[in-house]
């Protein structure tokens, strides 16, 4: 018994010790209390309702802002339109003072012109019809002092039309004095619809928050009745908000047009005496016409736009679908879906209606306003196209755009691996891959980050420009590669290739070294791939051109280029490119040619591409850069071709030679008359078979051959003639 007690005591001590030392485990009972269930339900409901609610608030805010923008722009436009006749007056100080100044100037100029004409008549050195000009001069002398009256006359005529249209626009309005009250009522669904929207959201929200227990009920309603009750409302708000903003933008353009109209006409009035002076001389008459056209355009544009607005105010009522009944129905679950289709159709129809009006208006308005309307219609077009795009695609693009804009991704994409010193060096096996992964994530997720990468490559290249020692620059390149800092490495490699000479040789040697992991590939593979991944195709091409000399076998070359991320697209295949390398050689221009490794000219495939694809400019660039190394291989190849042609029987030799010349006419032409005949770029025709020379020499040699139709062209012509004759025969 004693022993038993001892065991219990020891057991208790151990249990107590462990219960104090070890962490306590949470106890989850099988039968929780009744309130736990409510709490659990409340938490779950909140989890579902909370994100939905936050979206609803965002969209509603957007809707509210649209509504404010529409009302504000409509009110401003209303004021600008109504005040036009008052603003557009020529009696104000600015116009009067300005006009008196220019009129004085014009009168002085007129005297000078009069003296000029008089001298011409006296000296009998008339360069233009002086007498006719003299008549014009007297006419203008009279008119220019009445130029303000002339403009007032035009404005009075336009005012008559303007006022009558303005009155008709006002007659459509439901509110006295407010031109666009009716238009806005129709578009916003009227005050009842706005009240419903605010009541549904803000009112419901406030009420549910005030009454205890209703908050949870509200959340329950949101999460369970989201689709049947809130979704149609949200769709409605979204469409309306977009439309409100579009209309506000259109109103903003019109505010600008109407305001600018006042000042432009006033400035034209100030300049009118000088414009009249321009009427005198034939050389300056065009300026008068220009002035008159601008004046008429700006005077009429007000009437025209007002007329379009009148059309809009009158027409919008007829677009309203009759089945959009009581807007409060839309707040009732299930019934809210009623009429949503008609609502969508209405807004799209209204949008098209406004778009058509803007497009018609564009044809008849001053060029300055055309620019603004072009901008507005382009925004409209974009909205239209985006609206039709599949939802999934849009969402995906939005997601990508979002990540692209992310500053974090941009930062990650260019994150350098820090230099680890001392004890921290022990961390390098983990740090280098970690930083490389971060960079890769940044590069993949952020297209915006790609620009940052390209910028960094350019910066690294610029920074390396000052390095005078090729060994030092190479060591910097190797260091960047070891740290996995490819952007820096690409920049340094670019600079070394560009510098040429020992710099180029050193980097090429490094780039051509076999890759340790895959001996079939070379060191340049990863670097060019990185450049391609970063969207820096020029750098990738530069590296590939520099590294792929004849030392790399043909099969391996294509494999390497594939690994680097180069491939032929449909256009390339249509151009007849068989390999990526062929394209790389054929499309090398100016400075790209300097990049090639000199060994490349020993490759017959490369020389073949040069003969078939290059032009004189490319040839001259290669000859200048590589001198004998290029010209000898090139000439040797041409001489071999010509030698083969000469071994053929005469007629065949002639045809083959002509085909050879025509295969690349630009090169044949260039070589024939290149001033470098004696230093490597000589004539093809000089190596032609003798009988060909005899035949074509008097006709102009290569000139005549190039001008002649080829055998294929002759065949095609013959076929065409045969068809024509056959047709004639059929008619007969």
């Amino acid at each position, binding site marked *: 018994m004693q022993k038993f007690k001892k065991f219990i005591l020891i057991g208790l001590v151990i249990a107590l010790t462990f219960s104090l030392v070890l962490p306590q485990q949470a106890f989850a009972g099988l039968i929780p209390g009744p309130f736990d269930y409510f709490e659990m339900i409340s938490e779950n409901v909140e989890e579902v309702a909370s994100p939905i609610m936050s979206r609803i608030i965002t969209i509603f805010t957007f809707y509210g802002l649209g509504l404010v923008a529409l009302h504000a722009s409509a009110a401003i436009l209303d004021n600008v339109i109504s005040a036009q006749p008052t603003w557009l007056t020529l009696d104000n100080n600015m116009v009067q003072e300005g006009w008196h100044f220019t009129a004085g100037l014009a009168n002085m100029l007129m005297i000078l012109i009069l003296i000029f004409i008089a001298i011409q008549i006296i000296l009998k050195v008339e360069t233009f019809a002086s007498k006719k000009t003299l008549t014009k001069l007297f006419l203008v002398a009279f008119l220019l002092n009445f130029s303000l009256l002339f403009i007032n006359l035009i404005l009075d005529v336009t005012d008559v039309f303007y006022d009558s249209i303005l009155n008709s626009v006002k007659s459509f309005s439901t509110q006295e004095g407010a031109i666009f009250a009716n238009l806005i009522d129709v578009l916003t669904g009227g005050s009842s619809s706005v009240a419903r929207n605010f009541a549904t959201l803000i009112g419901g929200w406030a009420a549910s928050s005030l009454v205890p227990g209703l908050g949870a009920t509200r959340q329950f309603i949101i999460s369970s009745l989201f689709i049947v009750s809130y979704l149609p409302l949200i769709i409605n708000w979204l469409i309306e908000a977009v439309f409100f903003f579009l209309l506000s933008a259109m109103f903003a353009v019109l505010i600008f047009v109407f305001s600018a109209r006042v000042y432009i006409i006033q400035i034209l009035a100030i300049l009118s005496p000088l414009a009249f002076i321009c009427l005198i001389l034939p050389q300056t008459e065009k300026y008068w016409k220009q002035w008159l056209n601008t004046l008429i355009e700006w005077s009429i544009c007000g009437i025209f736009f007002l007329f379009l607005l009148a059309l809009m105010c009158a027409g919008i009522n007829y677009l309203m679908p009759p089945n959009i009944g009581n807007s409060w129905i839309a707040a009732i679950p299930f019934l809210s879906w009623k009429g949503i289709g008609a609502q969508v159709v209405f807004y799209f129809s209204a949008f098209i209606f406004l778009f058509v009006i803007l497009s018609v208006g564009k044809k008849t308005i001053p060029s300055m306003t055309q620019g603004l309307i072009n901008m507005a219609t382009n925004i409209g077009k974009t909205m239209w196209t985006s609206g039709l795009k599949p939802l999934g695609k849009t969402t995906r693009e939005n997601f990508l755009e979002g990540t692209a804009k992310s500053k974090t991704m941009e930062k990650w994409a260019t994150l350098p691996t820090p230099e680890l010193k001392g004890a921290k060096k022990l961390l390098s096996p983990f740090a280098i891959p970690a930083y490389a992964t971060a960079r890769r994530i940044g590069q993949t997720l952020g297209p915006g980050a790609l620009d940052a990468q390209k910028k960094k490559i350019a910066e690294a290249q610029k920074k390396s420009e000052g390095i005078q020692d090729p060994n030092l620059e190479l060591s910097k390149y190797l260091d960047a590669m070891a740290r996995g800092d490819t952007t820096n490495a690409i920049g340094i490699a670019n600079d070394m290739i560009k510098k040429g000479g020992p710099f180029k040789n050193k980097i090429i040697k490094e780039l051509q070294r076999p890759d340790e992991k895959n001996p079939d590939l070379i060191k340049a593979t990863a670097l060019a791939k990185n450049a391609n991944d970063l969207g820096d195709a020029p750098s990738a091409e530069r590296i590939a051109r520099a590294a792929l000399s004849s030392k790399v076998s043909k099969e391996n070359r294509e494999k390497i280029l594939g690994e680097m991320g180069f491939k032929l697209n449909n256009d390339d295949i249509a151009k007849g490119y068989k390999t990526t390398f062929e394209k790389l050689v054929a499309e090398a221009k100016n400075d790209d040619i300097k990049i090639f490794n000199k060994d490349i000219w020993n490759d017959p495939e490369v020389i073949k591409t040069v003969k078939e694809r290059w032009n004189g400019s490319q040839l001259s660039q290669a000859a200048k850069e590589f001198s004998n190394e290029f010209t000898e291989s090139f000439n040797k190849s041409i001489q071999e071709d010509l030698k083969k042609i000469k071994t053929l029987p005469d007629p065949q030799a002639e045809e083959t030679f002509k085909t050879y010349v025509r295969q690349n006419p630009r090169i044949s032409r260039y070589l*024939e008359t290149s*001033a470098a005949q004696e230093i490597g770029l000589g004539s093809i025709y000089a190596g032609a078979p003798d009988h060909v020379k005899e035949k*074509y020499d008097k006709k*102009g040699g290569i000139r005549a051959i190039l001008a002649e139709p080829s055998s294929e062209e002759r065949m095609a012509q013959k076929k065409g003639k045969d068809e024509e004759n056959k047709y004639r025969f059929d008619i007969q």
Partner: protein
Amino acid sequence: MAEYTKEQLLKIYEKLPPELQDAVFSEETANNIFDICSKNEIEGSKMSEIAKYVGRVLMGLLPPEEFQATLELELNLDSKTAKNVARDINAFIFIPLKPFLAKLYNKVSEGEEKTEEEKFLGEEEMEKQKLEERKKEDTYREPIE
């Protein structure tokens, strides 16, 4: 007309100013010669010969004023055609390069007057020697302390 090997010509080419180097290989020069030859209906095999002499002018081996005579003598072009070709080539190729050609031919004529010793030593070495001789002759020069 003196004959040169390709290697000699390449050495001469390498010493040319960059503007003339560009002109020798330029596609524009070639196109101009082609058009001028076409306009003057030059025979096929003579086109590349004309281009060769243009190259020689650009390399400082044939003075531009002797170009027309060379065409007549070496290519048997009649006087009128040679004159027309020379005039057009002058207008389109030589005149735009006039400052460089003038400098090149002045240098060439100066070079012809150089003594054998000067040619052997080169310009820089000769300048140094002349400077030292002048120093020796200058008896009024104050001694440098």
